């Protein structure tokens, strides 16, 4: 084991290398490392934030959907009610119309009956008189008997 000037040479070389490393190698590499660390941290944070935003948005969408469902159910309900109402109204109207038609027809029938009765009455009077004339075979004072026949006819 002999120590010689190599030890000095190595020490000097070592000092120079350390200085070089300190000056030109270490700072850019560690700076890049730190920079990347920061970037990654930022990225993770951004991802977190995005996740949170997404959750919020999803919640809001779910809320909106629920609301829309409720509202649509209400609308359908209302529409059904309205439709029923309209149907009911139409039914009522139809019934009324039918009744009116029936009533009209009845009145007409009544009128016809009346008219027929009148005609019949008139004819019965004439028949009765003719019958009476034939029975009596003589002319009776038409005026005197008219009264009697009319009375008979009205009793008919």
């Amino acid at each position, binding site marked *: 084991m002999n120590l010689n000037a190599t030890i000095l040479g190595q020490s000097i070389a070592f000092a120079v290398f350390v200085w070089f490393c300190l000056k030109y190698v270490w700072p850019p*590499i560690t700076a890049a490392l730190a920079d990347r660390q920061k970037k990654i941290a930022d990225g993770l944070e951004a991802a977190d934030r995005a996740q949170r935003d997404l959750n919020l948005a999803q919640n809001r969408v779910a809320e909106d959907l629920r609301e829309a469902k409720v509202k649509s159910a209400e609308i359908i309900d209302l529409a059904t009610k309205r439709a029923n109402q309209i149907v009911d109204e139409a039914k009522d109207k139809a019934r009324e119309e039918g009744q009116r038609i029936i009533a009209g027809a009845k009145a007409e029938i009544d009128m016809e009956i009346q008219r027929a009765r009148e005609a019949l009455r008139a004819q019965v009077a004439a028949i009765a008189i003719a019958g009476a004339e034939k029975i009596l075979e003589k002319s009776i004072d038409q005026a005197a008997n008219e009264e009697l026949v009319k009375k008979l006819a009205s009793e008919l």
Partner: protein
Amino acid sequence: MADANTTGFSLPEYESGTEYIAHHLGFLKYGQLPNGSWGIAHTIEEADAMGFWSIHVDSMLMSLLLGFMFMGLFYFVSRKVTSGIPGGLQNAVEFLVEMVQTNVKSTFFARNELIGPLALTIFCWIFMMNLMDLVPVDWIPLFAQVVAQDNHLYFKAVPTTDVNITAGFALSVFILVIFYSVKIKGLGGFLGEFAFHPFGKWALPLNLVMEIPSFLAKPVSLALRLYGNMFAGEMIFMVIAMVGLFQLPLHFAWAVFHILIITLQAYLFMMLTIVYLNQAHTKPEAH
């Protein structure tokens, strides 16, 4: 193997295993030769005769080469680093930087811009050097011998098996520890730690006897732990290299195990550096 190739280079021959290992342990050493001139040592005796003012050319060359390799790669990545989606290379570099950053954060509690780059440099550089241990033991020396056209050239491929290299790291860390201790706690505070801990001021000599060796042991243990592990690992590779055909599965097995060691040692060096510097930045709790 005596058959010389066209360039006149012949493969090195060793008369014994001892010589093989001894040759592999030799350094390509530049310094003052016994005759007074300066040059590369050709024998281990010549190398040993050189004083302190000599240098291991192979260790320094490999160390700088590997240093430039990983630092160049890191620099290349840091030029076009993006905080967006990283490419494969950037991913790998970021993995290392982040690993170092995490360790620094969990171990170092003061604020100091230097610690991160320091730890990163230590880990990557030492790992790269240790990695040379996994290159088959003869390849790099042989390559150097071919390049130099000298089949007796010493060339040590793994810089961390050179105690000078590990001690260079440890010494630098030790100087930083002293520098920051004095800077943060003041000279008095720093020296006071030796004098008044762990037993209070009435046991001052005992404190000194306990604290000073433990303080000085830090760089020594730092340097020798790495050196010892790598040296032993390489030695085993060399021994395996001498057993003939069976060396292939053995090499594989030891290399797989060694991957663990080289990573662990680089990591350990880095962590201990961070721990020592953290101690330099914090006052010990009162006793």
